[in-house]
């Protein structure tokens, strides 16, 4: 297992403000990382990743080490955003974990098919969510090694 040298930056795309708050609290509770940023839909996610529009200032949008992606969002949904990330040579190396209420077999299949690194169904209780986030953090922060993103890219 690896020692964490710098905080892992997470970026969560979720349109539901309550869910964003719960995720934020679950992150704090599970002591995974305090570096979690939020966007509200797929359009904002792509703008964040490409540092466009409201994210044009470099410090506003640090490049995430891992993206947590809801599937059902307005304007551009998670499936489209995932496909776009995985077909962009500058972004495709960032692992994307789908975190959604959907349990549909088709969504699971489709997500892996277009390049999701994992698929997690949002637990209904807060305790369940904390446990899932802890498991997520354990894997992505402690077990695996993520690419080091050079300062220039941040």
């Amino acid at each position: 297992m690896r020692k964490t040298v710098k905080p892992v930056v997470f970026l969560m795309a979720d349109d539901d403000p309550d869910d964003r708050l719960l995720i934020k609290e679950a992150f704090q509770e599970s002591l995974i990382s305090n570096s979690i940023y939020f966007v509200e839909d797929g359009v904002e996610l792509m703008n964040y990743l490409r540092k466009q529009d409201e994210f044009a200032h470099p410090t506003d949008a640090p490049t995430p080490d891992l993206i947590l992606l809801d599937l059902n969002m307005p304007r551009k949904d998670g499936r489209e955003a995932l496909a776009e990330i995985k077909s962009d040579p500058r972004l495709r190396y960032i692992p994307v974990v789908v975190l959604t209420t959907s349990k549909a077999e088709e969504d699971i299949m489709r997500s892996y098919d277009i390049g999701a690194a994992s698929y997690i169904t949002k637990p209904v209780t807060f305790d369940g969510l904390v446990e899932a986030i802890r498991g997520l953090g354990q894997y992505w922060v402690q077990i695996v090694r993520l690419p080091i993103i050079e300062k220039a890219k941040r």
Partner: protein
Amino acid sequence: MPQQNLSLNILTAEDDPDDCLLVEEAFQECSQENHLFFVEDGITLLQYLRRQGSFAEPASAPRPDLILLDLNMPHKDGRESLAEIKADPDLRSIPVVVLTASNAEEDVFRTYELGGAGFITKPASFQGMLDLARGLNQYWFEVVELVKNDDI
């Protein structure tokens, strides 16, 4: 938490028999529920996944839920194998975790760029391997939903 990942088929591609044994013992020690399969290079890995050659009989090659992939192997290495798996519409939905002796930053980056679901440097001790097997089991069994797989 998902309920259906009751037993996982884990396919390990690894050319070193000692490393295969370590993986096997560590996974067996932390869970009896896994079905472990081993291939020794990239060519055999792709034959297994495509049920070609000595794997023509479907029962001899159950579809894996998770692939553990060494990078440096003869015939066809892990990088090529990963690229091939992720370019194949029938195989790309299987998560591939790289488990290698390599520590090179380029290998880490490349793994994710090619669609790997994790890069892990092989632990040096059996205890380390055991902790790793537990961690992998916990994440892929209990946290994550995998594509439904009726093999085995």
